[in-house]
């Protein structure tokens, strides 16, 4: 690969809108940055802030949460809860010196393949400018191994 820094972005995409938007982007052969690695959740409302933090701890340079547009949520308003959480999470992350570009929320309907692709390109560029995050390596440097989030019994 080229020497330029290639950010790794983890995407939590909702099954009904944004994941399908990504499908559509592919089907339409829209080329965009290969830096996004997608996990599917049924609804953006499933995204537990712990996942976002864990992704950053595990080395992601950025996290994208994508859901249906407000009002178009397959589960009526799961995405509204996502927006509420995201707003508070972002405020917290800013206190922690994590640039807002690194954790983004995107609305993309199933028909908006182009929107999703464009957003990924934009985010990749923004994070490329910010440089690597690589939390455990660059921030915790030598504070012991990562604790996995405990799972329900």
């Amino acid at each position, binding site marked *: *690969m080229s020497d330029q820094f290639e950010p790794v972005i983890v995407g939590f995409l909702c099954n*009904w809108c944004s994941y399908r938007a990504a*499908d559509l982007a592919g089907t339409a052969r829209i080329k965009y940055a290969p830096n996004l690695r997608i996990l599917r959740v049924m609804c953006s409302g499933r995204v537990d802030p712990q996942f976002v933090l864990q992704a950053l701890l595990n080395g992601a340079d950025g996290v994208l949460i994508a859901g249906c547009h407000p009002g178009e949520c397959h*589960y009526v308003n799961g995405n509204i809860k996502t927006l509420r959480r995201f707003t508070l999470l972002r405020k917290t992350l800013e206190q922690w010196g994590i640039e807002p570009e690194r954790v983004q929320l995107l609305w993309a309907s199933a028909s908006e393949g182009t929107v999703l692709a464009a957003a990924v390109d934009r985010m990749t560029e923004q994070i490329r400018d910010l440089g690597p995050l690589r939390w455990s390596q660059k921030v915790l440097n030598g504070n012991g191994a990562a604790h*996995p989030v405990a799972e329900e019994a």
Partner: protein
Amino acid sequence: MTEKQNSPAGQEKVGVYICHCGSNIAGTINVDEVSEWIKGNPNVEVSRNYEFMCSSTGQELIENDIKEKGLTRVVVASCSPHMHEKTFREATERGGLNPFLFEMANIREHDSWATNNKEAATAKAKALVNAAVERVVHHKPLEKIPVDIDPKTMVVGGGIAGITAALELAEAGHHVYLVEREGTIGGHMAQIDKTFPTLDCSACILTPKMVDVGQNENITLLSYSEVESVDGYIGNFNITVRKKARCVDEELCTSCGICEEKCPQKVVDNNYGAGLSYRKAIYRAFPQAVPGYPVLDKENCTYFQTGKCKVCEKVCPTNAINYEQEDQLLNFNVGNIILATGYDLFDARKIPQYGYGRLPNVFSSLEFERMVNASGPTGGHILLRDGETEPKTIAIVHCVGSRDQNHNEYCSKVCCMYSLKFAHLVHEHLPEAEVYNYYIDMRTPGKGYEEFYHRLLKEGTHFIRGRVAEITDADRKPGEEGKLIVQSENTLLGVQQRNPVDMVILSAGIEARHDSEKVSKLFKMGCDYDGFFNERHPKLAPVSTMTDGIFIAGACQGPKDIPDTVAQGGAAASQVAKLISQGTVMMEPVRASIREDECSGCRICNNLCPYNAIEYDEEKKVSHVVTALCQGCGTCVAACPSGVIDGAHFTNTQILAELEGILWDMPTEMTVMEEV
């Protein structure tokens, strides 16, 4: 790069199958490399790549390996799960494993098709496949949830789509509630004079079907009614319908029509009459209305406005008039819903340069339909707004509000054809008149459509290729006085033309209902940017929606002509009939559940569920999930502050394992640096 194994070695025997999809995947991703590499994951027992995993041979690979190699988990890396998850789950099941012990990695839509960078694509594929393996290890066997289908169906919208769907189901012996907003069923088709390209009379083919609806005892017709609320899920919807007060007692009314006749209050009929004719304050849209009872329009009724009049009450032979009548809220349980809510015509006033609403002799297409209709205000005579003069020259403007970024980007599909029909009708009614059709592109795909175009060419219609720029009554030179001047470029000549005519017809496009967004939310289903309802799959599931048990038919899904609309009505009906005859459906077991013994009863989750699936037990002081109501979104799981809600098939362990797997190449070991 170091490989991180986060699941205990040999915990499970995973079979990994990487699909080439011809060259769709293999062309960009080095599938051999990936399938070789993933063998490094201690849980992977078998790793193969094959040209077409979805082929029967491909599926047999899976089945055999499960049997012979004793696989306990299966991962297929190929297309989107929305394409083939079902296929491979079934293969897994045939192999003898629970279908949910399968996971899919989307390396086509999300990878090979999304980039040309082979190296990056291959690296990404590794991450996605590894993620799937790490995840599948934590999968638990799940059983689908059977749901009984209530054989009754609700059809919303009494246009030709709804009528067709209702009749199909009713004739199959299933009960249907047909809900219509207006006083009568019939929809737009009832307004139309002739239908293209066969030119058979719209009313003649529609009214018999309307009568059938009225007479079929399997159909409960709820006219002048609107859906108020929708609860439940496939098989068990609970719907509240508001039956608006029409101030007429349906038991007593004999549809004799005297009230209408005697009513002193005349108002413009903006609905059925397209604003070109008048109706009374108590009225039936048209004589063949079904049901035949009139509707009293309170806004325009003299009695309701001034407290005096009551003529209708006086003249009614059966005392059917009831001013005190109130809206009724009726409740229905149905198993399935078909939405056939139709379309609105584009409002040509939004394009002021065409002068509609300002220049009297500019007409909308629906106005013209009414005018040319024998039952219309002019008895079928084509006249100018003065109601007397016959036009000698008529311009028909295509693409009004369609193919226009300023309004609707899409092509409305039917305008070219109905514009041709208009031209023909003019030739028929006014043989002397000259007709000019202004078009951008002539779009006549469909059986007999192009032939109809050729017929019009023979009939002497003038076709000018060019979108009309403006229509004005400001004459510039002799010959233009008192005319409407249609200004455009004749793009085939490359010259600007001014064409003085007597009448202009604007072929306005088809739009989603003004309230379609509200409706789509009411039924918890999506609609697209333009307001048309989203089908589940544009090719393979055109009448299904993302919501099980809700189907769509006709123009509410997108612009359509009558044949397509009728076809969809039938299609939707057969989809429902299929479910009814199945009796039960199996629903995804992706559901939330609360570990009550660990619940602290904080009640955070209680009002998060849009389906009210979470209940609080006052006795035990804990919350629990009503599985049948849960739709599996997982919002409560993410919210539960004590982490005691499990989201089946999307558990924290599964997602976190997937997360670690997808970031396998990220350095997490700490390089000890100088403390800052």
